């Protein structure tokens, strides 16, 4: 289902905000479910997207485990003598953290259902200054540029007959350290060159820019948005009026 990028941006903001405001695990789980449904409606491939960011997902799971071990309170579940390893409060905190991060990741995946350019156009149409949109886009693109440059230099070292894997650990560290500086300098130089080239093509020449792509909200876009707003309002009402389910239980 192709939706206007502004609708997607509003959903991303809405769902992440609701996840932060949600009072407990049950409310956050509801948001997770809704985020998954929204992703399905927009046709994103959730599993493939999560696979691509598997490193960060593993990191989040790691933090979750740390939280469950470090936050104390409630009923002890795993303990030796008076030393409590895992408690109910720790588990709940950890779960809340995990589910909130899941909402953030799944909301980010919503953004992948549109190309970066459309998202940028959507942000512009919503009143975000173009300079901010442009800078965010460039900053995001510099991550892959940075890693591409680093990888290219690693290849260059290999092409000088140096088998990096066979180097002793200290030399390997020295090598990587050696490469960071020119890679960063290369990125800085590239950004300087880029700033000249965009100025050469009229960047910030005028207060207002035109847009090649026309963004028009259709009937289904408005309906989709309306559903989201109604849900959001209803959720907040229940969240604050009824309060925490866990404390009731």
């Amino acid at each position, binding site marked *: 289902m192709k939706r206007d990028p502004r609708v997607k941006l509003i959903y991303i903001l809405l769902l992440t905000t609701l996840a932060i405001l949600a009072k407990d695990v049950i409310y956050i789980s509801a948001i997770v479910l809704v985020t998954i449904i929204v992703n399905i409606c927009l046709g994103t491939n959730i599993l493939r997207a999560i696979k691509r960011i598997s490193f960060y997902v593993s990191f989040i799971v790691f933090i979750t485990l740390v939280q469950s071990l470090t936050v104390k309170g409630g009923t002890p579940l795993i303990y030796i003598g008076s030393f409590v390893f895992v408690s109910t409060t720790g588990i709940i905190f950890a779960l809340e953290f995990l589910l909130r991060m899941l909402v953030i990741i799944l909301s980010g995946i919503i953004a992948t259902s549109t190309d970066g350019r459309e998202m940028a156009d959507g942000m512009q149409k919503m009143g975000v200054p173009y300079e901010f949109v442009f800078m965010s886009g460039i900053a995001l693109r510099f991550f892959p540029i940075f890693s591409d440059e680093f990888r290219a*230099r690693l290849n*260059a070292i*290999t*092409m*000088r*007959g*140096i088998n990096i894997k066979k180097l002793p650990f200290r*030399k390997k560290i020295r090598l990587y350290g*050696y490469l960071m500086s020119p890679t960063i300098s290369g990125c800085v130089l590239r950004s300087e060159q880029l700033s000249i080239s965009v100025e050469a093509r009229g960047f910030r020449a005028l207060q207002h820019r035109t847009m090649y792509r026309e963004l028009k909200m259709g009937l289904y876009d408005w309906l989709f948005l309306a559903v989201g707003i109604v849900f959001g309002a209803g959720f907040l009402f229940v969240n604050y009026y009824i309060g925490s389910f866990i404390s009731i239980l």
Partner: protein
Amino acid sequence: MKIEIKDLSFRYSKKSPRVLENLSYIFEGGNIYFLEGKNGVGKTTLGKIIMGLLKPTSGYIYFDGEDSSKIKPADRAKKIGYMFQNPALQLFAPTVFDELAFPFEIMGTMDENIKDNIQKALKKFNLYEAKDRSPLTMSYGEMQRLALAGISLRNVDFLILDEPSSALDEEGRNFLISYLEDFSRNGGGVILFSHDEDTLSKINGVIELVLDNGSIK
């Protein structure tokens, strides 16, 4: 040295079209090969496959009869000097001198003899005055000369150079040509990926090849 390519095919992914299709050719030492072709036809890709930076989808490459699939890229680079299309990405040391000294320092083989060779290479490639400069501040043409100077310090049997003259002035180009002719006279093989007709027309005894529709003609 002989580089034999047999029925080589390559595609970037299952969905993308084949860039190279059953390509077979034998490159022999003592010759200079000028491989041209339209933009996007796969010249750089072929160079990277020979160096082991990309794995072929099918087919074989033999170095003096030995199957290259068992030879790691770093070991291939000990026999073949490779210059990237964008020389800026293969330079990383703080100074020009360090750039040439780096491989020997990291491998622990630096000695007075090598230092002497580095000084000679700096003079030969007209980089002596720039030896304390950062390679990143050099012009494109200077970077190309520096990359070639680095390769010249290793005793390689073959050179694979991707657009080595794209930013060289006439003096630089003439120097490159005489260097390559010298290299091949001493038994080394050279494969140039290039569009530079000015260079092509000046190399003595060059073998002109065209990469088209995935194979060499």
